[in-house]
């Protein structure tokens, strides 16, 4: 490669960034706690709400994995926005199908 000019621009270059073992273990314990909660809640009959509650808890657990295990909390704008974009597209895929399914 000629010259040093083709360096990445604008975006931050890679920096060492790690979480202490203690923090990671704490997150793991939190995840176990939420797993317990979701199992517990499943025994209470909330009717249609059950699935929404368990999805909410799963989303919290997923966010913990994303933010800490996957370091999303410390990433730049590009990654965060594109990840949200992907989730948005997933949301569209599921919800727009229901324009059809719920009104047949």
């Amino acid at each position: 490669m000629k010259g040093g000019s083709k360096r990445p621009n604008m975006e931050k270059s890679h920096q060492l960034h790690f979480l202490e073992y203690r923090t990671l273990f704490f997150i793991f314990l939190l995840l176990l706690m939420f797993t317990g909660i979701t199992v517990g809640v499943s025994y209470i009959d909330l009717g249609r709400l059950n699935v929404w509650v368990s999805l909410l808890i799963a989303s919290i657990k997923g966010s913990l994995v994303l933010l800490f295990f996957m370091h999303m909390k410390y990433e730049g704008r590009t990654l965060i926005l594109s990840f949200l974009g992907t989730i948005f597209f997933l949301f569209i895929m599921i919800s727009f199908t229901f324009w059809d399914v719920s009104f047949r």
Partner: protein
Amino acid sequence: MKIQYKGIRSWLLTMDHKRIAILYLFSILFWFLLAVLIGGLLRFELMFRGQTILSAELYNSAFTLHGVIMIFLFIIPGIPAIFGNFFLPIQIGTDDVYFPRLNLLSWYLYMAGGGIAIVSLFSSGFPDTGWTFYVPFSISTKTNVSTAVFAAFVLGMASMLTGLNFITTIHRMRHKDMGWMQIPLFTWSLYATSWVQLLATPVISITLLLVIIERYFNVGLFDPAKGGDPILYQHLFWMYSHPAVYIMILPGMGVISEIIPVFARKSIFGYKAIVASSMAIAIAGSLVWAHHMYTSGMSDTAIFVFSLLTFVVAIPSAIKVFSWVSTLYKGSIQMTPPLFLALCFIYLFSVGGLTGLVLGAVGPDIHVHDTHFVVSHFHFTMFGGTGFAFFAALHYWWPKMFGRMYDFKKAYIGAILLTGGFMFHYVPMFILGLQGLPRRYFDYLPQYETGNFYAGFGAAFMIVGIFLMVINLLSSLKKEKDASSDPWGGTTLEWQTPSPPPLHNFITEPEILAYPYDFSGVVERYSKDDKGE
């Protein structure tokens, strides 16, 4: 540093984006010409009533093959894999894509996909389902759907990895002086395309996998007798395949946005609007998939919502067309084969887009759904649009890619034959469709004979035009290298490097313009040349 091999290995093991682009160019051209000939056979069969040259079974396989090749092996990879690979790194002033090895892998996946498609041809028959592989027929037919579907799956992976590579390249490898609003429009269009490739392709991957699973394990996910819902297959299929038409057209629009300002010697009208409309098309295009399903038994609410959203997508496309036309206004227009093809693109694509609105509105769609009208509409957008943009790009960048200028006269004749044949071919199909001739039928009633005859006639002209253009380009390769670094007077970075570009793309550090379409330098240079003579 790049490792340099000699002989055939210098091609098969190359990690140079330019060589990979040329590998793609010749493999894609092969598939394209093959599918053109198959399409010609189909039209010849339909010119006369009854069986002419193909049996009914062969006819079904032939239109499936034509569709599968054209969609998965030509239009989707066409412009991004050839011209994107070649010019995206150069346009942003860098020496390669971010993942060169992945780039080569994409090409091998592409070749493997094509190879698997060929295998399915010779083992218990190519599918007769049409390229849409709709259930339940695709699950019950005896032809070799599994292999063909797997070929499409592999090709999807190649397309996805190309998209991944381009996004990373644009984010991480841009020249340090180039901001987002200094990126050329072709690269911008590839950026938007790459996101669609990345996020939509996995949906088709899983859908095609489900077809294979259903064929082997009979789970019944789409089988009403077992509790499944066949319409859900169509939802999943179009969740990818509608965004896919924007994978096909967006790079084509990018090519036109490059060509028009160069030959009008005038800055592109509405640079930011074109950038925004590319991104808007990518997003809005993902919200409209079910407009392919008005007659499939979907709920009326869904039909209403998806029809409304479909009309929204027309807005960004129109912004682009108006911007191109406004760029030409009061420009100093220099006619060349690429500009000629670009102008044909604008006309044909507009017809394709406007007839799309006929189909997007529910009332008329119920009338013309699954008729020749639809076939004609999507050929106007995909062939009149992307296909013409592909040829325009080929004529625009050929001197840069190979360092040789081609013969203008033959190029014009080829382009005129193609355009004239195109109109003769597809306009009768609009009328046939309105009269009620369904698509994919092997035979028809006597009243449709005239239209089909004219269409077949036009097809012959088209095929001659296409081959003339391709042969003209290829025969230029026999000449000495004669193209200067900037034969057209372009402003983007690829015109700052020799033709063909050296291994590391630039000999001297490229000079990034504050605005990528600033023609004042070009105009000055040309007026000096005029005075000098």
